[in-house]
């Protein structure tokens, strides 16, 4: 395999300095930051769309935007947040930046493919959002269930399909690249079981991407045939079957949840040991639980369809399979708790966001296990309970981790520290706003408010207004964050190479790193989590019996 080096282009065609970030750069670090910044731009667009939704829902009647507009807004909000924010940022953004460091490589396995994968995102995003102003955007939700997606205005729906196909293609290119990099570009001497946990998370995620995204692409192609060429794959008037679409759609879109959260699990596994000054607890079980989540994640999709026309045996099978995902996920959370236990926790923004992630995700996981139970789901399916649940998973889970990761890796990206006081203010506002926004939605769903509505029963007004206030707080919370990341890039305290005293390879180089990552040979890091004082060096007088016992399983 020939590995293209960023240096091939560096002296001739490639621009230098800040212009690199607007170029077809082959440097994985540039591409990672391109993903990250682009993702944040779309995050603020998607957030503004969420603001429109919460403004509409501040009153029980449809009064803020038109009804068609409202459906366009909720469709765009879902699509932007999933395909243009979370998936590109936790996979493409952090993945591109960190994976080559972690495997001890100079770049990704396929740098040109990598740049192509990134540069598919801006046109897809512009297409998607531009469709609102030019043709009117899709109105059938991010799920685009037929026959609704066949009967709503066709042009907007087709643009939506093209855009999602581009983003899915970008995701597949990225997935192939990560698998090749992790398996093939490891520095000689570095064993698989010595890789930092984020590599395993990205390996699992990329397997899911490569297995399931093509199914979505095929499904959306068939749907576009139904819309454009009037075929009848999913059109019941022509003998098509609408439930088949749901099966195919969720075959991708449930693994998509793991595509969004597994990388976050990996990032948290990097952040917690460093700021706790302890090894990651249970490395081997963490690896196996990631792989178990990958396997189980592929066979749980029909729990999104318990109220569709599904036979009872199918409902039962998917209930059991879905419930069992709680086991490997639970292992990961207990291991993180054990990582915290007995550490020296630095209560900085990265740690606070990571711990809030644990709290939020456990809440979302508990409601998730409840939702997996068919009888429970039959009442709350397609209600605000589900909206609350999945925002606890993707926002309370993944987005909190994205913020933790920004606070953690910003010194590496820029060479400067972020302001901790502003970071803690950002955390506090986000945590309060988030819970205020989404916790009441569980009650609303249980008591009869369906999702995707512009109007609702007036008895739900107060809680909806509380939820909208929470959304406003979340919007406000992004101000200190934005100020912090923009100003600290120029005025922040100089970080030095390794401000956290970390052991993983990205910290064993300058900040920001040179083009080929390390000036000399890549370091061989056999113990990426080798923090802590071994228990045989503990003072005998200070040690308790439990300290000695708890080291019993040490390998």
């Amino acid at each position, binding site marked *: 395999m020939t590995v293209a080096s960023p240096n091939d282009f560096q002296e001739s065609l490639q621009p230098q300095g800040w212009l690199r970030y607007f170029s077809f750069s082959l440097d994985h670090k540039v591409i990672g930051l391109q993903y990250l910044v682009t993702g944040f731009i779309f995050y603020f667009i998607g957030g503004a769309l969420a603001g429109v939704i919460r403004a509409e829902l501040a009153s029980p009647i449809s009064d803020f935007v038109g*009804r068609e507009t409202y*459906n366009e807004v909720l469709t765009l909000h879902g699509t932007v947040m999933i395909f243009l924010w979370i998936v590109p940022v936790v996979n493409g953004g952090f993945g591109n930046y960190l994976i080559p460091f972690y495997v001890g490589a100079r770049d990704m396995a396929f740098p040109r493919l990598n740049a192509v994968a990134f540069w598919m995102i801006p046109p897809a995003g512009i297409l998607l959002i531009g469709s609102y102003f030019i043709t009117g955007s899709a*109105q059938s939700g991010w799920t685009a*269930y037929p*026959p*609704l997606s066949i009967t709503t205005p066709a042009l907007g729906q087709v643009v939506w399909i093209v855009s999602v196909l581009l983003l899915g293609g970008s995701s597949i290119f990225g997935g192939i690249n990560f698998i090749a990099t992790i398996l093939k570009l490891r520095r000689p001497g570095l064993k698989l079981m010595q890789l930092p946990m984020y590599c395993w998370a990205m390996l699992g995620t990329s397997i899911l991407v490569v297995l399931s995204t093509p199914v979505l692409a095929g499904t959306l192609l068939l749907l576009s045939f139904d819309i454009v060429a009037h075929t009848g794959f999913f059109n*019941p*008037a022509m*003998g098509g079957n*609408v439930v088949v679409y749901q099966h195919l759609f969720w075959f991708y879109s449930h693994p998509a949840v793991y595509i969004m959260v597994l990388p976050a699990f990996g990032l948290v596994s990097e952040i917690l040991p460093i700021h*706790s*000054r*302890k090894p990651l607890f*249970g*490395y*081997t079980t963490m690896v196996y639980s990631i792989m178990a989540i990958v396997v189980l994640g592929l066979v749980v999709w029909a729990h999104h369809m318990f*109220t*569709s*026309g*599904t*036979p*009872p*045996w199918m*409902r039962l099978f998917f*209930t*059991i399979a879905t*419930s069992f995902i*709680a*086991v490997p996920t639970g292992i990961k959370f*207990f291991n993180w*708790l054990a990582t*915290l*236990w*007995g550490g020296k*926790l*630095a209560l900085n923004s990265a740690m606070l966001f990571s*711990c809030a992630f*644990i709290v939020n995700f*456990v809440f979302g996981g508990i409601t998730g*296990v409840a939702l997996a*139970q068919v*009888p429970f789901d*039959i*009442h709350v*399916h397609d209600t605000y309970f589900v909206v609350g649940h999945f925002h606890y998973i993707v926002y309370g889970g993944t987005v909190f981790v994205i913020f933790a990761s920004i606070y953690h890796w910003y010194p590496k990206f820029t060479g400067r520290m972020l302001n901790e006081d502003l970071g803690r203010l950002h955390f506090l506002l986000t945590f309060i706003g988030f819970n205020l926004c989404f916790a009441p939605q569980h009650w609303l769903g*249980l*008591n*009869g408010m369906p999702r*995707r509505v*512009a*109007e609702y029963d007036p008895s739900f007004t107060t809680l909806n207004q509380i939820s909208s206030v929470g959304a406003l707080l979340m919007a406000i919370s992004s101000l200190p964050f934005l100020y912090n990341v923009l100003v600290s890039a120029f005025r922040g305290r100089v970080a030095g190479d390794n401000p956290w005293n970390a052991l993983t390879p990205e910290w064993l180089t300058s900040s920001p790193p040179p083009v080929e990552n390390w000036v000399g040979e890549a370091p061989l890091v056999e113990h990426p*989590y080798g923090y*802590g*004082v*071994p*228990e045989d060096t503990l003072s005998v007088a200070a040690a308790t019996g439990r300290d000695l016992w*708890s080291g*019993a*399983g*040490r390998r």
Partner: protein
Amino acid sequence: MPIPSALVTLLVGMALVLSGLWVGYNVNVLPLDASANAPVYDALFRVLFSIGTILFVGIVGLVLFSLVRFRRRAGDITDGQAIEGNLLLEIVWTAIPAIVVLFVGLYSYDIYERMGGMSSLNDHAAMHRMAPTETETMEASVGAGSAVSAPAARVWGGIGVAADDVNVLPVEVTAMQFAFIFHYPDGDITSGELHVPNGRPVELRMKANDVIHAFWVPQFRIKQDVIPGQPTVLTFTPTKSGSYPIVCAELCGPYHGGMRSTVVVHEPDAYDAWFEKNSPLAATVASASLTPTA
């Protein structure tokens, strides 16, 4: 340490479990239970709520305790202990969630069966035994006016499919953008509201004309998608008189939020009066049950 830490842990754990159970049995966040399967559902909800409370409070407690107890003091630059794992602990916290989800899964299976969710399995077998009768039933329930009656040979899922109770009240439901239309084949009544007698099982035979809708009555704890091209059935037995909202729960277009109706549960006498007042057929026809005995 004056009190052994194992004892403290045990006491905290017991307090946590007891308070979780107490919270679960005193939680009151669900709407009125107005159908026969609502109390069954609520029992499941209480169990899930108890387990969820114990887990959530326990884990949040551990996080908060760690953040306070193990916070890095100013000037401390040392590391924590190098504990890389503990096989016994990891086995314990693999086994406990596995047992809990297995229990929850089995219990919810039991609840699902009590709600009638598994009955269409039996119905499927019945379909093979009495094929001609079944076809007649289907044609009656799907309705001759349906443009999408081709796949009617099979009824797709639902709760309490095809109760073989002769007392069952059949109602044909047609969902369209943006309304539910209820048709009573016994009395040839067409209504925009669903009127049902208290205590009598109702079988909704549902079809959609345009896009997917979903029939949801929060007070009955039931929901079923109404799918174009695939007739679905939903059975419930109301237990409390009153008016409850019918909500469309599947995005069906611009007026999705306005696609609501009402189910009115009458006392049996009042229902008979409503039926006779509205039926264009003679009252005698209504009293003789036309319900097919499938």
